[in-house]
């Protein structure tokens, strides 16, 4: 499975020039100055979208989507038909449909078979020493990454995910009360910190 081409859609040969990228960021920010954060955020959301759709190379497909949007913007000077994020989604849907069509045209292994094989790979006898080593590495990375968090955030995330079932629920309710925010706002705050931690740990485990 690993020797297959990584992206099923036809990759555009177009790439962002410095000027095109700046224009793209300005368009994406839609009047605000995000310092590139909007770009990273939409790239992340597109990657998650392709991943949920079962695509094997979600990061590449997200990049391909943004490249196509960038090219259109450079060619036409502006895109006013839709809001930036909505337009990115429209292009992403086309990229996804192409991905599906190209897979079908190549007559490759049906998706169900792939899924089945992956499940059996996962539940099969694992190399426990390797698994144990990975666990230990992950734990060490968690320790170092959590040390890098702002103390208040570290404390918040430890408390938020502390306990199980009713203890956890009660703990969260109490936290939200203390901080004077809604349960939903607290959940988003904890989620953002966890996401940061997850990204840091993933990089650390991969040795990046």
């Amino acid at each position, binding site marked *: 499975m690993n020797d297959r081409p990584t992206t099923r859609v036809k990759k555009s040969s177009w790439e962002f020039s410095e000027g095109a990228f700046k224009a793209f960021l300005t368009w994406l920010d839609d009047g605000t100055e995000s310092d590139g954060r909007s770009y990273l*955020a*939409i790239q992340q*959301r*597109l*990657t*998650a*979208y392709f*991943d*949920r*759709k*079962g695509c094997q190379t*979600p990061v590449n497909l997200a990049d391909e989507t943004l490249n196509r949007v960038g090219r259109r913007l450079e060619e036409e000077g502006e895109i006013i038909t839709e809001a930036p*994020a*909505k337009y*990115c*989604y429209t292009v*992403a849907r086309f990229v996804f449909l192409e991905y599906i069509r190209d897979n079908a045209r190549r007559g490759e292994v049906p998706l169900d078979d792939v*899924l089945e094989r*992956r*499940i*059996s790979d*996962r*539940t*099969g*006898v*694992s190399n*426990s020493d390797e*698994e*144990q080593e*990975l666990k230990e590495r*992950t*734990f060490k990375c*968690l*320790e170092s990454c*959590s040390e890098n968090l702002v103390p208040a955030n570290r*404390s918040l995330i*430890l*408390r938020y*995910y*502390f*306990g*199980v*079932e*009713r*203890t956890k629920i*009660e*703990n969260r309710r*109490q936290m939200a009360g*203390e901080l004077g925010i809604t349960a*939903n706002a607290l*959940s*988003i705050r*904890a*989620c*953002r910190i*966890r*996401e940061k931690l*997850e990204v840091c*740990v*993933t990089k650390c485990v991969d040795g990046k």
Partner: protein
Amino acid sequence: MCSTELMSELTDRQLSAYLLGSLPAADAERIDELSVTDEAFAERLRAVEYDLVDAYDQGELLGADLKNFEGYYLNSPIRRNRANFAAAFHTFASVNADAATESTSALVSEKGLLSRIFEWPTLRLAFAAGLVLMTALGGWLFIENARLRGELDTASARAEDMERQAEVRRAQDPPGTVKLSDESVELARLRAEREELERKLARAQARPGIRPPARPADIPRRQAQSSIPRILSFVLTPPLRSSGQLPQISLPEDTDRAVIRLELESNELHSYAVELREPATDRVIWNTRKVTAVRSGDQSSITANIPARLLRRQIYTLSVTRSSSAGEREIVGDYTFRVVR
């Protein structure tokens, strides 16, 4: 409908179903779009996803949800990594539980819980009266408890001493000799006295207010401790063919989780699945699909971390299986035990 309305209309349950691939296509498409176009929605979806992954890791997913999680959600390296991260993160959070409770205490103290209580004159008086009453009651119960415990210790020591002496004499007597001496009668009396004292002590400890009254400085800590999950650990040895007495685990009502370590006959560090069944109905009431064995000395074991609320006063079986090289489930053992509450 604008995205904000749609976002609030969607329940967490629907979002979970979407993540598990079990939502109808039309609904899924609306969520697909929102997940890219609406940043706030994407964050909410991520929060639901974390809860889902946590539920899987903590063995709380059952039935179709569990099936879809393993058959659909985990079919992506990114999401598998997320599940692995969750497992490591929970261990990390448990290990750092002290830090979490310390901060709970700190936050509660910061808010000045007591000082806010004392802003109310009536409450101040009531608190003072309560404090005097609790001190008196707590002091009496404390003394009574200590007295009973002292008597129990003395009775136990005397009984043990007599038992030891009787044992020595039995060894010295010729075989087949049966004696009913005064010592035997005294020993029986001491045993009865010890049992009676144990009952009294248990009754005394069951009385409310047995603990000394709280000092103001203790209150935040006490509150923090009340949110600490109560976890009891047990060890079950490999099941034997001979029918002996069933192992018994005693769970007080306020227990949150029962952590049961299952010792394995084999020393291989496989990955195992564990199911908790009610033998009477053969119904699976809890399961976990991937537990890696750990070795301590010559003994390998796996751990089942079961929510205590699932365990009632009856007999249960923990069935342990593993994947064979042919990919089929292989039975490793059934650990049957009795729960006493």
